[in-house]
């Protein structure tokens, strides 16, 4: 059950992302060309509901199933890494039309070529781990 609940949540995520067409290379291109509200609507709705929910979690000091207060980890404060890393990520996102989740969901959807993209992403993460101390953060 402990493992199953994460697999089930993942299945739910994969279905939602596929049915909303957020795993589509074409939809990502449409987003970066500002020619449809679709992707902005998805992200905007998720963030708007997210902000309200996170506010309520903090206000009512809600706890998780293990009885711990729900805390959202704070991101590293460095703006250089956020900006530079973000730009590099964006270049890859527009080229492959897939951020990390959709890479894997697309494999399930039958786009096996995404396995090479995933291999590239693992490699990119590995190289970051090696050179990270030489980069501005």
């Amino acid at each position, binding site marked *: 059950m402990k493992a199953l609940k994460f697999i089930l949540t*993942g*299945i739910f995520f994969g279905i939602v992302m596929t049915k909303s067409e957020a795993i589509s*290379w074409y939809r990502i291109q449409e987003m*970066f060309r500002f020619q449809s509200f679709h992707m902005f609507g998805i992200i905007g709705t998720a963030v708007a*509901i997210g902000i309200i929910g996170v506010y309520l979690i903090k206000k009512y000091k809600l706890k*998780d199933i293990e009885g711990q207060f729900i805390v959202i980890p704070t*991101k590293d*404060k460095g703006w250089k890494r956020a900006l530079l890393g973000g730009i590099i990520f964006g270049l890859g996102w527009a080229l492959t039309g897939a951020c990390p989740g959709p890479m894997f969901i697309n494999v399930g*959807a039958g786009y096996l070529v995404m396995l090479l993209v995933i291999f590239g992403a693992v490699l990119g993460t590995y190289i970051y*781990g090696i050179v990270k101390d030489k980069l501005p953060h």
Partner: protein
Amino acid sequence: MAISEFLLAPWPWYFSGFLIACIMFILLFFGRTFGFSSNFRTICAACGAGKKTTFFDFEWKEQRWNLLFLVGSVIGGFVATHFLSTDAALKLSASTIAQLKEVGIAFDGGLNPAQIFSFDFMFSVKGFLILLLGGFLVGFGSRYAGGCTSGHAITGLSSLQIPSLIAVIGFFIGGLVMTYFILPILF
């Protein structure tokens, strides 16, 4: 409209956006945080990268839940494609279809262009390099930025974190440069 008809058609943005927020809350309720790209670091660590590089020297087994989430998402993609979809063509905006045609990428009605996401393309030198490099940029960039779309754009913005806003602005700078300046050269 019958429920089955609604489920089989592409889901509207407000419905999908709501459900993605729910996924973030479900994971928070389970005592975890929504952040997909961390899995790449976990995979590196699980393959033994921690022996040489301190960045990968951590208790990756604590991240097993996220790998399970990953496995689930692959299954979800399969289930949605085979049991919850019709073969109706994607309704892409006409202007995007026209602009992509100018770049040299045809719209074929699928989720992803077969022109790029096919074994024919992957086994060409150019195709191999494009797919590998694209993935590389996503993997390198997400770890450098400290998160991807789920960690920064959804979780980070929901908790009103400034670094996440900067990262999302970065996502768009990179995305626009690729879309308008680099894609036309590559294809």
